Every structure is written in C-alpha cells, then in structure tokens.
C-alpha cells in the first residue's frame, strides 16, 4: 500500500537526507579489512573446483570419476547424479549449475571436486573422464529462430503457435512457416495500443532500421565466491557474495532438499553485481560438496569461469519503425525484438519490449518480443535488463527522425515526451514523472552548447526504467548509549548502508554517526527480496523510515510512562520526546540518549521494526548527451564529454547518486564501443578474460558530468526513486547517435568496434 503519500508532499526540508557523509563501511574498504566472498576461511576447509564442458552442445554419454576419487587428497566428487532430480520451476536452475545429460554451452558445469589444496583439485579435474558426443549448436539469435536450427531443448517447446505468430507478425510477412513442432522460440510478448497501420498512414516521415547488439557481461570485478559448511545433522551455513542472500537460501534449500530454517546464509561484502549476482551458480555445488565431504568447502570462480559460466546478458536483433508528422509529433511506432538468453528461457525481451517506447506519448504503438534459447550460458539480469538494447534501437530512430525533420533532438523528444497521465506503451498510465525535467536540464547544460569540430558528433538519448519495490524487512535496535543498530536485509552494493543511516537519522532527528547499519544474515531478519531493480534505497529506505517511526513511537510511549501521561500526549521531535502541548504537562524533553540510558529499568529494550511488501516505486527517466570524435582512418572513437541528467526523486546521498549515474554511463560506453561476447565457429567463447573482453579503462573516458533532477515520487515518504539502473539505458543510443553524426552514417550494429566503424565509413563512400 502506498505509504504516507501526504508526508512526501509535506516533507520539504531535510537535515541529514541530501548530505553526502562518509559511508559506515568505508574505513574497512580503504584499509583492506572488508571481507568479500573469497576472503573467508574455515578450519579444515577444502578447495572446490568445477569441471566445465569444452563443447557448446554435447551429449554426455558417460562420466567416470573413479580415478579422481582415488587421488589422495580428494575428499568429494559430485556430478548431477549427486543432486536431487527436480521438476518444475527450479529444474532449469538445477540443470544450469550441473549439466544432467547434455552440456548446453561452452563452460556448462559437468562435475565438481573438493580437495585439500588447489593443486590436488586441479589434478583431480583432469582425471575425470567424460565421453561426449558433440551435437550441432547455435549461438546466434536470428539463426536460432530459423526452422532448421539445431534445437537447444528438443521437444520441450511446442512452438507451432509462436511460429505462426512470427510468420504473421508485423514486417515478418512472407517468411516460411515452420511445420516443425519444436522450436528455440520460448515465448512471445505483445504490448501496445491504438492502430499502428492507421497511425503510419498519418505519418509524413517514417524511419525504419534493423539493429543488432552483442551479449555483454556485467563485468563485476569480484568473481563469484562462497564458503559452504554442512554439518552431519544436515544444517548448513553459507558465506557468499550475492545480491540476495534470502534468495540464495531459499533456492539452495529447495535444490538440495534442505529445510530453509537449517540453512543460514550470510552475505559477504559484494564486489559488484549489476544483476549478475541475483541467481545461484556455485552455491548449491559448494553445499553439495561440503555435504558429501563432511568438511567446509570454498568455491571461487576464476575470471574465465565468470565469463563462460555465469550469466551475461542477451544479444539482440531488433527492428524499429517510427512515424511522425512534419511538426515532429510521433503518430505510430512499432518494434519487433528478438533476444537470445542462452540455454534456458528467460531472456529480458519482455522488459526490452516494455521499456522500448516508454519515454514517449504514442497514440499508436505495437511491440512484439521473442524469447529465444541458444547454446550460450543462461543470461542473468544486467542493470535495467533488456532496456539498453531496445533504447539503442528506438532512440537511434528518434535521432534520425530529428535529422530528417531538421529539429533539435531534445526539442523533438520533449514534444513527444511521456508526462503524468500519459498512457505508457506497455500499458499502465504514468503518475508524476520527470522526463521533461531531464530534457530541459540537458538542453540548458553547458555541454549542449559546445561547438563541435571536424569528425566530431553529438548524440542525445533518453531512457526509462520501472524501478521495483518488493518484500523488505528492517530492524532498529536502540543501544544503551542512544545510538542505533540498524539491520537491513538487502546487500549493500554501492553505498546503501550510508543511505539507510541517513534516513534513520533524519526520521529520529539524531546525528548520522549515531546510526550504524549492517546487512543481517538470513536467520536474523525476515525475508528480503534481492538487491535488484533499483529497489534498495526506495524499499529498504521506506522500511527503515517506518522502523524508525516505530522506534520513535515506542520512545514516546516510554517517555509517557516516565512522565505518567498518556502516550498520545507525547511527540517526537529533534531526537527527543516532548509533551505534545501545554495541556499534556510541563516536562523537559527526554532525549534519545536519556531514554536509552534508563530503558533497561523502565520497561526493557526498545526496538523498531517494519516489514512490508512495498509498492509505489517511482519510475526514473534520464537524458544523456555525449560528444565523440572518430578517427576516419582507423575507426578509433574518443568520448570527448558526457552528461547524465536523471530524475532521482530525492537524492538521499547525492555523491552516491552521482556515482550510480557515472558508473551506468561508463558501462554503457563499454557496451556500445568494445564489449562483446565473441564466439568461434565451434561455439566456444573466444574472449573469456579482461584482456579481450574490453571494459573501459580509466584513460578511455572523460569526467562524467551529472545533473540530479528531483521530481518527488509520491510513493515514498521522502520522494525517493531508484537510480541504479536507468543510467545504463540511454548510453548505447546516445553514443551510437554521436558516432553516427560524426561518421555521417547510422550505426546499427553494436559494439561499434573500430573495424565496424571503418567498414561503415567505407560503405558510405562507395
């Protein structure tokens, strides 16, 4: 239920919120004391290692582990035979963490060992003999949709209906219908309203392009790591770097047939995730090894394993058509999106479809999305999953429309921008949103006025992300000295503990330094959804504020008891209980420190808590402006300046809000320029390392300018919107538009690596 909508409108001045103090976990992180996933050890600990398929698609005819088991120092060897056979929702996860009868991608786990040291473990992996029968594979989304494509899951998807849809879908006419029952197309998604056929008839200008993007990886610097310890009574502990330890607990318990109450999961500090740590990979394997060996087992992925066997994002193939009247008003828009999400269903195409045109007020819009399976690792969420690719395609067309109409690209966007009351392209009607405000601020910014030189181009793009809320549970305990221990259940991936402390301090009227936030383990707090969907500052923040209010109410009750007056005659203000009015009596205020000092003798400890399935997350919009220079002889691209303007609702800790803006922008720059999964003819990943999977380095980028727009979200007591994900939605399009402007030819293929740019320039001149 939307909470305290009235408060958010009333709350205009803040004391703590809106400042940027040093984060509570900062000292440990600058001194090397912070403990991340691989930093924990346990007495008697073994080293766990995983054997992975070298084939993109192969039948596993047999696995012989006898020699590995016989090797001195090896304490356990497991294969899928050691894991329960699940059916239903968890089955895909189970098969993804350990192949059952077929290896579905290069890097798919097939067996695992636990040994006394890394050298023995490595030797043991070499002694496991697997008889593979190599099968035909497919890694490309368009090829995977062809009627004669190798099937990733033969017989599993009755795709006749989807194929019919595909054949009769927009712009797909004339393609042969497949008679085959089975297919790699897993789902079809439809969104939109109005009548696009009619709409396009009203258009004076229509632009249409086909776009492709390659799969990218979240590229978090910390590889997946965990330490599992299962006792002989079946209870277990898991130390793990994850975005959601409650999720890890529930999924692992289900996969391994354990009681949820018997598995305690403690989240380590997390060295980046960006969505890539919202599922399990090695955790159930480590638990199964520990259970079999009877000793603690630590599993740490190598960087190569991270690339080959965690969850990159989808690659995509997108067709967009956009029509406008001469005055710039959009009259019709349609898109067909095809995303491959690896070996299992669940590509983010639905969200790509929903976000594609969300920035615009469209009378007629139609979007179709196809989820396609291929012989690649199962994709995982990556920061605004699905949205950057479709924004790349749509905003590319918007950019071209601006050129064709001779309109300023910001003016064109403003003319068509979604506002409060606009019926969104994915269905619901928007509440108060801040897209127009970001466009206005971008246009006013100094970067937009810089004159460009030769071979330089400017790109503009806007982007949208829903932002999530969800299940959240927070505790606040008042310590004897009047400070607060704040326990939240959402792993802190980018400074959220500081934001929580700020909100608790704000609500209770006490100094920021008097609140200390920790991320509590699964046995100490009620269920919390994963740190995802830009939900933490919103949802855990909302719960923190309400837990603080609960705490304040109890403090007032205590003061009332001490004063001998009714509880409702006491109010909480500036960190102290006060009589609510002159009728209540004339008592000097009781500060939180005074109440805390006597708590144990006036009725016991004082705590606040709050649990909620939160809603009311406010969508966030952004507009990015970027200037690039292209070397026409080599295709080398340099980003000259970059501006992020985004609506944060209310920036709780502005420095970390800026950090989210800047980080998202640079990840986007990497995606558009150089990052890509490169597969060979053999279906093997050719660049599973940071040398050839090229994320931007420090010297690749300029300072990233930011403007924080604040259009309050009525669903949050302070007006907060999530900010983490929207920042990666516009950059692909913004940079592509800038490079297109500099080259004089539209970039439709990502990444726009120098060979592609040079080829595009050549095609223009011929």
């Amino acid at each position, binding site marked *: 239920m939307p909470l305290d909508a009235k408060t958010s409108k009333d709350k205009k001045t803040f004391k703590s919120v809106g400042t940027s103090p040093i984060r509570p976990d900062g000292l440990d992180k600058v001194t090397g004391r912070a403990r991340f996933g691989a930093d924990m050890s346990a007495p008697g600990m073994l080293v766990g290692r995983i054997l992975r398929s070298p084939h993109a698609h192969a039948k596993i005819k047999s696995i012989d582990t006898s020699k590995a088991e016989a090797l001195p120092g090896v304490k356990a060897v497991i294969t899928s035979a050691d894991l329960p056979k699940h059916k239903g929702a968890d089955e895909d996860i189970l098969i993804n963490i350990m192949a059952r009868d077929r290896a579905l991608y290069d890097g798919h786990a097939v067996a695992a060992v636990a040994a006394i040291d890394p050298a023995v473990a490595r030797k043991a992996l070499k002694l496991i003999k697997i008889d593979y029968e190599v099968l035909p594979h497919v890694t490309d989304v368009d090829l995977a949709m062809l009627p004669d494509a190798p099937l990733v899951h033969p017989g599993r998807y009755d795709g006749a209906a989807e194929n019919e849809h595909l054949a009769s879908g927009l712009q797909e006419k004339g393609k042969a219908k497949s008679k085959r029952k089975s297919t790699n197309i897993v789902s079809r998604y439809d969104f939109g309203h109005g009548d696009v056929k009619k709409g396009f008839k009203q258009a004076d200008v229509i632009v249409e392009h086909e776009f492709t993007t390659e799969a990218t990886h979240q590229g978090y610097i910390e590889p997946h790591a965990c330490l599992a310890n299962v006792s002989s009574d079946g209870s277990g502990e898991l130390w793990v770097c994850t975005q959601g330890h409650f999720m890890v607990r529930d999924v692992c318990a289900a996969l391994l047939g354990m009681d949820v109450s018997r598995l305690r999961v403690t989240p380590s500090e997390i060295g980046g995730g960006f969505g890539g740590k919202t599922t399990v990979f090695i955790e159930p394997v480590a638990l199964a090894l520990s259970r079999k060996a009877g000793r603690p087992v630590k599993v740490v992925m190598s960087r190569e394993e991270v690339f080959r066997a965690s969850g990159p994002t989808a690659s995509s193939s997108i067709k967009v058509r956009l029509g406008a009247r001469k005055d710039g008003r959009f009259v019709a828009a349609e898109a067909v999106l095809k995303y491959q999400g690896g070996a299992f269903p669940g590509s983010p195409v639905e969200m790509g479809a929903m976000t594609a045109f969300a920035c615009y007020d469209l009378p007629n819009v139609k979007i179709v999305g196809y989820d396609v399976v291929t012989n690649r690792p199962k994709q995982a969420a990556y920061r605004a999953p699905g949205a950057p690719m479709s924004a790349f395609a749509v905003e590319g067309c918007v950019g071209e429309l601006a050129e064709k109409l001779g309109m300023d690209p910001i003016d064109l966007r403003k003319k068509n921008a979604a506002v409060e009351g606009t019926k969104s392209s994915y269905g619901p009607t928007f509440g108060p949103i801040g897209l127009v405000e970001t466009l206005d601020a971008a246009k006013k910014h100094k970067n937009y006025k810089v004159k460009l030189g030769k071979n330089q181009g400017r790109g503009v793009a806007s982007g949208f992300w829903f932002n999530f809320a969800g299940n959240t549970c927070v505790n606040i305990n008042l310590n004897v000295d009047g400070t607060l221990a704040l326990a939240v259940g959402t792993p802190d991936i980018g400074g959220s503990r500081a934001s929580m402390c700020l909100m608790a301090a704000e609500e209770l009227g006490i100094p920021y330094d008097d609140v200390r936030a920790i991320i509590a383990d699964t046995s100490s707090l009620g269920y919390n959804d994963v740190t995802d969907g830009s939900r933490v500052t919103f949802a855990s923040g909302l719960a923190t504020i309400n837990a603080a209010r609960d705490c304040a109410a109890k403090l007032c009750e205590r003061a009332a008891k001490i004063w001998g007056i009714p509880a409702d005659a006491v109010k909480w203000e500036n960190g102290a209980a006060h009589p609510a009015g002159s009728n209540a009596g004339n008592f000097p205020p009781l500060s939180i420190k005074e109440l805390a000092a006597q708590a144990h003798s006036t009725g016991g400890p004082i705590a606040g808590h709050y649990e909620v399935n939160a809603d009311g997350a406010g969508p966030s919009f952004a507009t990015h402006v970027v200037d690039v220079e292209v070397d026409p002889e080599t295709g080398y691209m340099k980003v000259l300046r970059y501006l992020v303007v985004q609506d944060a609702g209310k920036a709780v800790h502005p420095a970390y809000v800026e950090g989210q803006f800047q980080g998202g922008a640079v990840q986007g720059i990497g995606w558009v320029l150089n990052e890509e999964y490169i597969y060979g003819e053999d279906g093997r990943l050719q660049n599973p390392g940071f*040398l050839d999977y090229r994320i931007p380095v420090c010297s690749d980028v300029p300072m990233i300018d930011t403007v924080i727009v604040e259009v309050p979200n009525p669903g949050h007591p302070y007006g907060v919107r999530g900010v983490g994900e929207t920042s990666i939605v516009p950059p692909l399009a913004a940079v592509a538009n800038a490079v297109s402007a500099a080259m004089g030819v539209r970039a439709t293929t990502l990444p726009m690596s120098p*060979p592609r740019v040079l080829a595009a320039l050549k095609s223009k001149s011929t």
Partner: protein
Amino acid sequence: MRYEAPETIKEAVGLLTKARGQSRILAGGTDLMVQMRSGMIEPDLILDIKRIPGMRDIVAEKGGFRVGAAVSGAELGEHAKVSKMWPGVVEATELIGSTQIQGRATMVGNLCNASPAADSVPALIAVGATARIVGNKRTRDIPVETLAKGPGKTILAKGEFVSSVFLPKALPRTGSVYLRFIPRTEMDIAVVGSGVCLTLNPKGVVTRARVSLGAVAARALLVEEAADVLLGNKLNDDVLERLAAVASDAATPINDKRGTVDFRKQVAGVLTRRAALLAFQRAKG
C-alpha cells in the same frame, strides 16, 4: 615443478641443459604466470634469471646500449639516455600493459614470447637491434627479426636463452617511432603495430630507413619494400601515400577476435604513414 634462481649464466645454462621436460625462463613473468595459470604450460623447471649479475642492468656499449634480459619496461623508460637515443623502442616497451605490468615485463621477454603482436619487437627491428643468445657451447648475437619462427616459437635451442638486447649507436639525424592500434587507450594487445626508423642527410633526404610491422603476419615483419619507398626521398604526400600502400600490401593478417583482414591492412598503411612522419620530425630534431 622446480624453481631455481642461479647466480651465474654458466649455472643457468647448466640447469637448462640438464633439465628434463619443459623449462621456462622467469624474468618479468607477466606471460609465464598467465600461461601457467591457464594450464597452457606446466613447466618442470622455472629458471629465475634475475639473480644473475647484469640481467637487470642497462650498460653503455660502443655508443649504444646493452639492455639486460630482466630490465623491466619501467626501468628502461626511466633511463634518460636510452629514451633520448631510441624513443621508439622505449615507447614501444612502455606500451606493454599497464603501469603494474611495466613494473615487471621485459623487452627480452616480449621478444622471446614470440607473439606476432609483441609491441617492442617492430620497434627493435626498426632500429636494427640484436639479441645475445647464451648457451652451452657458444654465445651469439643475432638480428632480432630472426629470433621468432612463428607464434610462440623461437630458434633457441635447448640450453639457450637470450641474456640481453643490444641497441646500436644512433647515427646523427635519426628518428625512431613505434605506433600501434588498439581499440582502447591502454591494456590491449596490438591489432596492428608499426615501427619506423629513419636517418636523414642534412637536406632532409632519407638515407637509411627500416620499417617493421607487427600483428599482421605470423611474426613481426621487416618490410624492406616500405623502406625502399622512403630511401632517397623527402617525406612529401606522394611518398607517404606510396608508403602506406606498400605497408598495407605487405600485411598478410588474419581475421580474429581482435580485428579483420581489411581493417588490419588499412590500418597498417595508416600507422606506417603516421609513424614515418613522426620519425621524420624526430630525425630533424
């Protein structure tokens, strides 16, 4: 696997000669450690040469410089006299990896690793450097371009290793340059590399020229046809265009994850033209 750190060349050669299975020299270790970790190699002997006197020294010799096999890129870059005489070589070596890699990686390691894309090699070829090979029977000096046979393969026999590289004395009015193309600004393997060394007469006419290309064939190339275009000429637009065309033609690259044939051929020409122009400016002083 055995680790040894001998203190003389004789001892080192003896260990290498006697060793069974694979042996690897450890100087900077920046390639060795990566190859071992990936399981690409499992050497039986790791021979650390850094404790042998002279391996970490840069010594003036016959007007040029002898650079020990374990001199890191950072150490070379900090040597003012070498940097002044052969800026192309120093620049090329300093392009190998990050600051961290520079603290360890060596020019000789780069050479002996025999990667077609090694940055320092085209620069060394261009300046006419020689490599000193020590071994059981004899010590010999060879032109650097003859060391590599192909990717990862050298002419070194069992018991031999490269102890130093010699950079000859630069003639007056000589300029050396190495340029490479990578998609990022740092931390990449050359997609194309071009080393050019020019000597001018007082009138600005090229009297000596050496041009070398990296990452466009199985090993770094000495492109004599390109040098011929420059010899006897000043660097006008026509000469530069012909140079670019000859360099592009000399490149016989492959398509791979780092670049395409078309791209590499074109960029080989562009970089060689740019390198020649810069070398010309340096030679003029």
